[in-house]
C-alpha cells in the first residue's frame, strides 16, 4: 500500500494561523518571521508571542502579475503591516477603495483561504488583513 506523506504545510500551520513572532529575551528585539537566533544580538534565547489582531499599514501594492497559485485571485493587494512590535508582509483583502490604503491606515487580521492545490487537493488557510473600523465589518473578522 502506498504511504501518503503529510503536507509540508503542517509544520508551519500554527505560525500561519496566529502570525506568532519571536522576541529575544536578551536584547528585547522582536521579529517576524521567526529565526533560530536574534537578528540583532545573535542570542538563541527567544520566546514566542502572539501579535495583536489590529495594526497599521506601512506600504502596499496591488499585484497584477501573480504566481500561478494566485491566478484565480488576481489582482491581489499585498501590504507591509505593523503589529506593534513586529511588521508582517501579508495579503490585504476586502479593499473597497484604494483610499482605504493610506500609510498608517488601520488594518485587522482575518482568517482566509490563501491558495489551493487544484480542485481536489489541499486548501491552505492563513491570516490576511482588511481595512478596520469600517461600518459593517465585525471586530474579529469572522
Amino acid at each position, binding site marked *: 500500500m502506498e504511504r501518503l506523506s503529510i503536507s509540508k504545510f503542517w509544520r*508551519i500551520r500554527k*505560525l*500561519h494561523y496566529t502570525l506568532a513572532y519571536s522576541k529575544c529575551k536578551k536584547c528585547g528585539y522582536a*521579529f*517576524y*518571521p521567526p529565526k533560530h537566533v536574534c*537578528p540583532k544580538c545573535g542570542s538563541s534565547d527567544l520566546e514566542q508571542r502572539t501579535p495583536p489582531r489590529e495594526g497599521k499599514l*506601512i*506600504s*502596499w*501594492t*496591488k*499585484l*497584477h*502579475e*501573480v*504566481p*500561478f*497559485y*494566485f*491566478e484565480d*485571485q488576481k489582482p*491581489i493587494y*499585498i*501590504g*507591509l503591516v505593523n503589529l506593534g512590535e*513586529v*511588521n*508582517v*508582509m*501579508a*495579503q490585504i483583502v476586502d479593499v473597497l477603495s484604494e483610499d482605504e490604503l493610506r*500609510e498608517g491606515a488601520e488594518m485587522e487580521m482575518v482568517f482566509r483561504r*490563501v*491558495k489551493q492545490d487544484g480542485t481536489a487537493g489541499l486548501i*491552505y488557510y*492563513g491570516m*490576511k488583513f482588511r481595512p478596520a473600523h469600517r461600518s459593517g465589518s465585525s471586530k474579529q473578522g469572522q
Partner: protein
Amino acid sequence: MRVFITGYGLSKISRWFGETLEDLAFKSVKDIENKGGELREIDALIVANSFGGILQSQNLLSSLIAEDIGFSGKLTMTVENGGASGASAILTASSLVKSGLAKNVLVIGVEKMSDYIGSVFNHSISTFMNAEHEAFYGSTLASGFAILARSYLSKYKYSEEDLGAWPILMHENALDVPHAQLKFKITEEQVNSSDIVSSPLRVLHSPPVSDGSAAVIVSAEDSSIPKEKRLAEIKFGYLSSHLMELSLRENLEEFYALKCVKDALEKGSSIDIKKVDLIEISDDYTISAPIIIEGLGLSDKGSGLRSILDGRYRLGDKPSINVTGGTKSRGHPFGATGVYQVAEVTSLLSDGKVKGARVNGELGLVVSMGGIGTVLSGILLEKV
C-alpha cells in the same frame, strides 16, 4: 596575485524559444573566440544560473555545459545567487585563481526565462522571497520592489511619474548596444500609460523576460595566456547578504547589504567610489537605481531620483551609470546578468565593442543584486 579578465563573449538577449541553455552558453563561448580570447588554457568552469533547476528541471548545469563545450574531466561548478549569480561566479573564479587551484577560469552566465507563461515566471521570481512566509501569500520580486517604491516616493515626496526618467534613459542607452534586448526609445507618456505590474510599478519600469548568455575568462597574473590578452584587472570584489524579509528591515528605502559591500570595497581597494568613472548597477524595477546610487554615496539619501531627473549619470558624466541599458533595456537573464555587466564594463574600458567606442576612464564598478537588496555585490575593474 593580480587577477585579470582576458576574454569576454556576449550573446544577444532575447526570447530564444528555439534554443536550449547549452545552445545559449555555446554562443557566448564562441563569441569569446570571435573577440580574440584564448580558450585553450582554461582549467576550470563556473556556470552562473538561477532558474535552471526550476524552469528547465536541470541541476548540475555546469557538468552538462562542460561536456557540451568539450571541457571534460576538469573542475566545474554551478553558482546560484539570484541576480547576483554572475558576480558570485566571477568572485569565486577570482578566488580559485588567487588560491592557485586554477590559472584560467571560464565563467559562463546563462539563463532562459521565457519558456513558460507569465504566471510561471512570476512564481520563479517569488523564489527570492521567504518561501514559507512572504511568497506563500503571493509576494514576488515585483510586489516587493513596488512596496519599496511606494515607500520611497512617499517618504521623499516624489510622484509616480518621476520614476519614468530612469527607464527612458536606459532605453536611450541601449540603442547602440548590439546584445541589448530592448533597442527602442520610449516616451514619458508610454511609461506612464503602460500596464501596471504591481502598483506603482508598470511594465516599462520592469525588466523584460530575458534569455541570454555571457562569458568571461578570469586569469591569474602568471597564467600562460599572453599579457596582451588582458582587458581589465579585477582590483577588488566583495559580496554581502542581509535580511531577505522586508518585514525585518528597519529602513525600506536602503539596502544594508550594499553598505557592507561599499565599506569592504573602499577599505580593501583604498579607492573612493566617487573616483570610479563607469558604474554598472542592477536597476531592477527602476526603484533599485536611486536606492543603489544613494547607497554608493553618489547622492544624498532621498535625492537619488532627483539626481536622475536632473540628467545625471549619462555617458560622459562621472560616473556614467548603465550606459549599456541596465536590466531595464539590455535585459535581465537573472543568473547571467552579472556576467553581462562585468563583460560590458571590461569592454567599455578596453575595446569599446559593446557600444561602438571605449569610454574615457580607468575605473569601472559592477554592482549586482539578488532578491530585493538581499544580496549585493561589488566588483571593481581597472583598465589595463
